[in-house]
């Protein structure tokens, strides 16, 4: 199933000018570009630290025994067994009969958790953000790039992948950035030798940066357009919203025209347009749209816009979400909270304004999850610190079990993959982390790691550099 979807994604993956190019040329360009980008990234890496290049470890048959199992979806099992087979969790419980042939893992004194999920990264798209532009593939030219697909440019051999997963983050939403429509995000497991092997959902969400009248981008536009006061800046932002509205309406019309033609070949054949085509599932509300918005007014505007356009919105960022919690609850819009460990937006905000954001959303019954934050460039190297974002939220009022859910089950639910990920339940994908302590504590060590039932070594570029130099005298 997911392989078939992935093939589709390769065919649709094109740049912003693609609508002017014929389809076959596009396909060629995409394939060529993807080869080039992989080559250049590899050339930048002094030595590739990922293990067994080109070979995936097998989906094994394991029984993790005598462990404290933190299922997340249900009660904790004080002393139980998890059976992993064919990439899935086959059984979990206190009294599971261990089938013969399973490799036994004695986890006495250890805890078993589902792998963590970060729904706000650009992992795989950026290797070195500064000084190595050849390794940066996060942001396309132009304002509207709905057909730029993260999955196309994910480098499976990025050193960031192993560095992140050995800390227990096994799955991420990785997304393009920049412009108004940045592109399409993919949900990937942090293991695989090709993007398609990594993909859980190749085209998981459309990413929109909601236009705003202030901030870095708005300042840039203001300078370009000679805008000097707030009223003009708001007008400029409104013009961008209008631009966005028009494109989405065009996509609706495009979808209707194509459908009509499919039913009745006597109609005039509508011309193909890859940009509009890529938007159709999103304007029809079949797939979610992640909208970056931090301030109160932007969040309200983004939600209203999404409702007007009948999109399926998810707010990304949400620094001010606590201020509009009842509004978000009322409109049933979830939030990917990225700013827990950011400095508060305003100088007169309380010192703990963002530390308490998640707790307030939880108290208000808003659906939320916690992400390490998709602000820009430097964030990829911080994805491994996802658990400490949740930990800080817990230090400031979020119940501990909710903090854990905020980086496991909740992101899975918000991204629509909770049938496969986010908890330890029979039938789910075996993304499992075995630790010697609380998963969210900085001092905790990961002892075993499984992604899709494949046991992975706890090595990364960082452990290898350690091994190389620790005994130098």
């Amino acid at each position, binding site marked *: 199933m997911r392989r078939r979807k992935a093939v589709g994604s390769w065919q649709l993956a094109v740049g912003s000018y693609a609508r002017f190019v014929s389809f076959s040329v596009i396909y060629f360009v995409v394939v060529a570009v993807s080869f080039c980008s992989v080559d250049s990234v590899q050339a930048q890496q002094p030595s590739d630290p990922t293990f067994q290049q080109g070979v995936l470890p097998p989906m094994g048959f394991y029984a993790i025994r005598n462990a404290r199992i933190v299922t997340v979806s249900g009660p904790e099992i004080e002393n139980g067994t998890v059976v992993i087979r064919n990439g899935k969790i086959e059984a979990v419980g206190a009294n599971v009969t261990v089938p013969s042939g399973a490799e036994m893992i004695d986890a006495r004194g250890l805890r078993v958790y589902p792998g963590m999920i970060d729904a706000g990264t650009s992992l795989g798209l950026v290797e070195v953000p*500064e*000084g190595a532009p050849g390794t940066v593939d996060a942001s396309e030219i132009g304002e509207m790039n709905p057909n730029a697909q993260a999955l196309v440019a994910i480098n499976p051999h990025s050193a960031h992948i192993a560095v992140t997963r050995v800390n227990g983050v096994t799955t991420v939403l990785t997304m393009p950035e920049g412009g108004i429509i940045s592109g399409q995000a993919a949900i990937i497991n942090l293991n695989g030798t090709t993007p398609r092997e990594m993909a859980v959902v190749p085209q998981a969400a459309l990413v929109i940066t909601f236009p705003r009248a202030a901030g870095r981008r708005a300042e840039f536009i203001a300078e370009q357009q000679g805008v*000097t006061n707030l009223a003009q800046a708001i007008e400029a932002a409104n013009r961008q919203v209008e631009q966005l509205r028009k494109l989405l309406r065009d996509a609706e019309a495009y979808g209707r025209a194509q459908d009509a033609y499919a039913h009745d070949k006597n109609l005039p054949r509508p011309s193909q347009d890859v940009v509009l085509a890529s938007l159709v599932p999103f304007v029809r509300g079949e797939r979610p749209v992640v909208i970056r918005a931090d301030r109160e007014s932007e969040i309200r505007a983004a939600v209203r816009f999404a409702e007007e356009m009948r999109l399926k919105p998810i707010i990304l960022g949400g620094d001010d979400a606590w201020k509009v919690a009842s509004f978000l609850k009322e409109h049933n819009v979830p939030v990917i909270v990225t700013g827990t460990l950011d400095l508060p937006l305003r100088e007169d905000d309380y010192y703990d304004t963002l530390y308490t954001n998640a707790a307030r959303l939880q108290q208000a019954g808003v659906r939320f999850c916690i992400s390490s934050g998709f602000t820009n460039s430097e964030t990829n190297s911080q994805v491994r610190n996802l658990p400490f974002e949740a930990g800080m939220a817990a230090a400031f009022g979020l119940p501990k079990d909710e903090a854990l859910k905020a980086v496991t089950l909740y992101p899975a639910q918000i991204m629509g993959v909770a049938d496969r990920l986010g908890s330890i339940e029979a039938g789910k994908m075996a993304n499992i982390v075995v630790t010697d302590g609380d998963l969210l504590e900085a001092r905790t060590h990961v002892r075993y790691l499984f992604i899709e039932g494949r046991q992975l070594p706890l090595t990364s570029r960082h452990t290898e550099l350690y091994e190389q130099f620790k005994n130098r005298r």
Partner: protein
Amino acid sequence: MRDKIKRLIVFTISLAMFSAINPVHGQTRTPDNQAEQRREAPTETLIRNATVLTISHGTLQNSDVLIRRGKIAAVGQNLKAGGGARVIDATGKYVMPGIIDCHSHTMIDAINEGTVSVSSMVNVKDVLNPTDIAIYRELAGGTTTANVLHGSANSIGGQTIVVKLKYGRPASEFIFPGALPGIKFALGENPKRSNFPPLPGLQRRYPATRMGVEETIRDAFTRAVDYKKDWDDYRAAQKRGDKSVLPPRRDLQLEPLVEVLEGKRYVHAHSYRADEILMLINVANEFGFKVRTFQHVLEGYKVAREIAEHGAGGSTFSDWWGYKIEAYDATPYNTAIMMRAGVVVSVNSDSNELARRLNIEAAKMMKYGDLTEEEALKLITLNPAIQLGIQDRVGTIDLGKDADVVIWNGHPLSVYSRPETTFIDGEIFFDRQQDIARRADMERERAQLEQAEPNRPPAQGGTAPTIPRRRPSHDTDDEWDGGIDQR
């Protein structure tokens, strides 16, 4: 005349309002009542029944800490305080020394004098902004002392200063008494300006390579040695009564370097790659000075032995990596390797954000390299104190040391813990309950300000406001105050 009186009244009222709402985060402080508060502040504080992480002599259960006149007067069980002492029941809570951040740009209104390659004539002491809200936020994270550094745009940067984060006080009261001042050096990509295009209309600045960085430092110290000799000769002549020798012309650029040569000023050297670390060690050995700390020092693990032999400290990020090419060989095991090679290591922030939670940065080192609890805690207390030469004053909970202590609601190495109260010199500079109690007043004040004339929309008689600008976040090393966002 009537107009004049009216204006005078308006002026008086606004003056009164201004002093009333002096935004010390809700603490209504005028110079007068500030002095009054200080007079009223108890000279003794007894923190009772806490778990005390002394850093120097282990963890004491159910113990008390007695603070008298700004110093730690006693540590033990069943201590008695005098009448009028502030007594805090810390049952179930933890007490540790205030956190020391060995790399900060908090509270300076400019970071980089980036127009020249040797900017040793400038001093961050001249641009301390005591109202920087980042100070308060860091206090709320248990940080009490910061090594405030010039940026890294130049091979030899500006002069630096150690401060105690006494939010609400004038800048002069922040300066850590007796702490040796420093100077910032920088190696690698930032002084080369390799990631920063030149300002429009300007040529690219020398140096552009690591060769040029070395040459720039060598050239400056060659001149400094000559300059020192001129003064030594002059002073010798004075001493023997020879009035014929004229005093050398003062050189404000070279004076700080002479202080380095004389051991009166610490060198804090921003560095990434192993080769450049060795380069500076060689230059320093040649000219006979010491590098006090290598800052960032992400490849320190590759040359840990050489750093230890030179006697330099390592002040590093816990786990930053990969954000530029020279950070691509970083590993969070850097701390463990350097420490085991005999380097005194601290974990720093270089960020107003990270300086709020250095406890977690320390805790990570138990994951990466299996440091013990005490070793991890030293990274943000005793070790940075040693690096800054202030270990006799701060960094541990010991008799006679400054009462810079923090009460935590749980073990400070746990992500679930947060500071409750932060003391500097025995005075409370952050208290969570007080902070929360002030919030109703803050809300009222905010509402009043929003009603003020400049914030009124045009329809109600106001003028269209300008576009809100982001407040420049002067908190990272490579921010250059050249008027243009260099990123």
